[in-house]
């Protein structure tokens, strides 16, 4: 079968995927990887940026192996990283339910869910180690939900026909992160990890072509300081906040990854963004972020809108036969559990048709009446009590009595820094883990797979693959007194000065909102070439205006939230441009990337495997002679030897 494309592979993108039978590749690769002698490990110093699931698990497991680790996070404590907010669960191919699950099925579902835009080898490894993750988390004391008899409970979760999702009430991310955090703090207590909270990485230091350190701003004192190491791990999450409104925490940003990109790390599939179907709708112009309602709600809630346009009756006044349960109608075999991109787009379609509900007409109902009648209100409360309560707090409406109103919101970014099978970027010594990389979810991530990937990368991949770098390359001793550190530090200081000295009239937040709105309009749930071209022009104008007209009060030599935000917004402008370019170049629809020009007659995404079955990785090229194009594209063809490329049907 192999690749259906005639795409030429870029020599810059050696995936290093092992060959041979799929199920044996990871163990074969592990055997072939070099090892670092236990006595030598303490001589290697690893810098881990970000302390979410990927960062905390990586830092703790590398420290357990004996490496010397420094861990950096922007929050006041590593326990507050945004992984903490994941609600629904974590997938693993344990097949504890005897319902037909297997490593191969999880692999297949993930490849298909990603709309055939991820690497087979990576995804299979993810499915393989998923079973170890659950073991590891239980050993750390994660209180997963259990059955009466004491065995682990599972549920089925968005887009899966088997029950393979492990969960801890609606707080799975919290419990997994606190588990990983406790392991990290144990290493901090033992002196194996040095922790730097409230530190933001503002640049990467590359010496002789190898990542050898970072430059940080101490967010409390404003001090700019360098840290040298033998490897740098970016575990800094996704870039959904480019849209301003998203389910991401307020501090989530692209800066660390973007600085690395500008130092030579290629950025892949920037346009693949996940819009989550079940979020609380926007309430007004003051809105600062969006709140997700776990899609586990779709197990019992039925999604509907009125059949008639402009129906303003309250939901209980609309009789059954005048309701359109559109997911059940369009996708009978998956119904309300259809994957995220499909469900989001379907919600957008019915609202665009004028059948949306609520004051803004930009929401759909998620109705629990049938489930409450079937199982009783107490049972529904035991399953979703905390989520219902959260909804009621935010909207002032009681979902036990009236249907919830939901609308899609930006939730996750599948794109990110390009990495090979070892999770190493195109800058040697720079590894990228978790949401920050592009690797495992293709064009769309399945529910309960983000937690899985973060922990897979940190606990079970990087401890092996980092040795290829540490043992395989000659790494001379380097300290922060090296000229390159001084040069990069100077650049960081000048950039801060430039922002501070703009002395304009507008806050970074106002620019960020404007950028977000533009991106949501033109590069959101649906995109088209004209809109993207228009966005590119506007983004550049807005970016230029930003550097002239931004206003940052206060001092740079102390805690300054506005200054922090200002630096991140500056990077979001550049990323936004790349996202639009990536979306414009990909003349197909796949997963979270829906180009209106490329759809089937019934409005489904239409892939073009002949021309676009590749990961598109962009190289930053500031010296471009035309002065217009700041990036050049490299392609990694995706080869499918074990699954058949098919239209992704959930009907």
């Amino acid at each position: 079968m192999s690749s259906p494309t005639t795409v030429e592979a870029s020599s810059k993108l050696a995936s290093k995927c092992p060959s041979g039978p799929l199920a044996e590749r990871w163990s074969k690769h592990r055997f072939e990887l070099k090892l670092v002698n236990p006595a030598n490990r303490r001589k290697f110093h690893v810098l881990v940026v970000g302390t979410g699931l990927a960062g905390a698990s990586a830092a703790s497991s590398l420290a357990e192996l004996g490496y010397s680790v420094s861990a950096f996070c922007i929050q006041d404590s590593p326990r507050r990283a945004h992984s903490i907010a994941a609600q629904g669960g974590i997938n693993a191919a344990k097949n504890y339910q005897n319902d037909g699950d297997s490593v191969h099925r999880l692999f297949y579902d993930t490849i298909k869910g990603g709309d055939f835009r991820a690497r087979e080898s990576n995804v299979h490894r993810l499915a393989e180690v998923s079973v170890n993750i659950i073991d590891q988390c239980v050993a750390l004391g994660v209180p997963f939900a259990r059955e009466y008899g004491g065995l682990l409970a599972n549920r089925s979760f968005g887009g899966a026909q088997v029950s393979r999702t492990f969960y801890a009430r609606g707080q799975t991310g919290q419990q997994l992160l606190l588990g990983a955090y406790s392991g990290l703090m144990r290493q901090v207590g033992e002196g194996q990890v040095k922790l730097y909270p409230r530190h933001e990485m503002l640049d990467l230091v590359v010496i002789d072509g190898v990542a050898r350190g970072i430059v940080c701003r101490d967010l409390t004192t404003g001090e700019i300081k360098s840290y040298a190491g033998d490897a740098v791990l970016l575990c800094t999450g996704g870039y959904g906040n480019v849209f301003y409104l998203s389910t991401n925490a307020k501090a989530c940003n692209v800066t660390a990854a973007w600085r690395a990109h500008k130092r030579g790390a290629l950025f892949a599939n920037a346009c693949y963004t996940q819009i989550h179907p079940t979020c609380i709708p926007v309430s007004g112009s003051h809105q600062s972020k969006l709140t997700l309602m776990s899609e586990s709600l779709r197990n019992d809630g039925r999604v509907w809108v009125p059949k008639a346009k402009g129906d303003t009756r309250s939901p209980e006044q609309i009789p059954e036969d005048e309701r359109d349960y559109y997911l059940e109608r369009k996708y009978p075999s998956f119904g309300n559990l259809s994957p995220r991109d499909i469900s989001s787009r379907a919600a957008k379609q019915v609202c665009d048709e004028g059948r949306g509900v609520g004051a803004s007409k930009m929401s759909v109902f998620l109705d629990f009446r049938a489930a409450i009648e079937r199982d009783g209100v107490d049972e529904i409360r035991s399953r979703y009590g905390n989520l219902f309560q959260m909804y009621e707090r935010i909207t002032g409406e009681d979902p036990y009595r009236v249907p919830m109103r939901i609308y899609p919101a930006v939730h996750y970014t599948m794109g990110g820094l390009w990495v090979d099978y070892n999770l190493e970027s195109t800058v040697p010594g720079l590894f990228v883990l978790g949401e920050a990389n592009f690797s495992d979810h293709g064009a769309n991530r399945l529910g309960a797979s983000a937690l899985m990937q973060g922990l897979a990368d940190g606990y079970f991949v990087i401890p092996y693959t980092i040795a290829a770098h540490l043992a395989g390359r000659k790494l001379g001793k380097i300290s922060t007194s090296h000229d390159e550190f001084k040069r990069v530090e100077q650049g960081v200081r000048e950039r801060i000065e430039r922002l501070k000295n703009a002395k304009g009239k507008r806050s970074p937040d106002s620019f960020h909102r404007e950028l977000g709105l533009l991106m949501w309009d033109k590069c959101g749930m649906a995109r088209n070439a004209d809109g993207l071209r228009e966005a590119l022009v506007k983004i550049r104008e807005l970016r230029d205006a930003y550097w002239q007209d931004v206003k940052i009060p206060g001092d740079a030599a102390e805690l300054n939230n506005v200054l922090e935000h200002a630096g991140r917004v500056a990077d979001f402008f550049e990323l936004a441009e790349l996202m639009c370019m990536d979306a414009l170049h990909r003349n197909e629809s796949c997963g979270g990337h829906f180009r209106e020009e490329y759809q089937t007659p019934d409005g489904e995404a239409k892939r073009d495997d002949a021309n676009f079955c590749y990961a598109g990785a962009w190289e930053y090229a500031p010296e471009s002679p035309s002065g217009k194009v700041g990036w050049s594209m490299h392609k990694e063809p995706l080869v499918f030897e074990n699954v058949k490329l098919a239209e992704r049907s959930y009907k």
Partner: protein
Amino acid sequence: MSSSHDTHASHAAAPTHEKKHLALTLHVWRQRAATSEGKFVTYKLDDVSPDMSFLEMLDVLNERLIANGEEPIAFDHDCREGICGACSLTINGQPHGFERETTTCQIHMRRFEDGQTIYIEPFRANAFPVVKDLVVDRGAFDRIIAAGGFITARAGSAPDANALPIAGDVAESAMDAAACIGCGACVASCKNASAMLFVSAKVSHLALLPQGQAERSRRVLAMVEQMDKEGFGNCTNESECEAACPKGISVANIARLNREYLRALACGD
């Protein structure tokens, strides 16, 4: 098919049903740095939408301050969903305000009256020094966890997850305690600035589970020792911590902490 204007509407969402906006007087604690003196500064807002969250109300105020060339109010926040534990604020004397089991970021302005006066202060405790304005340093909590708030389980060494059944009710009790978000409201609400609720939640979570038995004694002794070292006060059974806890962590955990501590002193391992 293009619907950019419709999606635009969803993003900007003009509210179509008018709700009465609130006029509020805020007295906000401003403090330049840990060593500077702080004071209340008064701000008036006259157009607060009842749909705003409390922190969005502060965002609006901050935007106004920036526009006037003044320094905005520093406060910690991140997820704004009540789970990261970053937000703090003592609102009219109560950590996280008056709503039960609610973090500051989850409070909405519809809970306030038109014309109301609101005092906003940092979480106050000697062990939580003020960094700036409403931001405090809660690093002491991390150091307590580093001292012993974990189960030692090296990656790669775990047995099969179902090898050790844990009765559903035991797992649920452990989860009740594990739900702590580490915000520090328990400390801020306590007249002794005690961290007993925080420490007891972690000790309970891990002591209840069979995986946690091997380190049970060492854990509680080490965590309590670090807690004392950080300068937190003692518990005098006022239960203010439970009332302030946004996650409803029960003071029954403190009773368990005391038992665990005595047991460890008496029996060791």
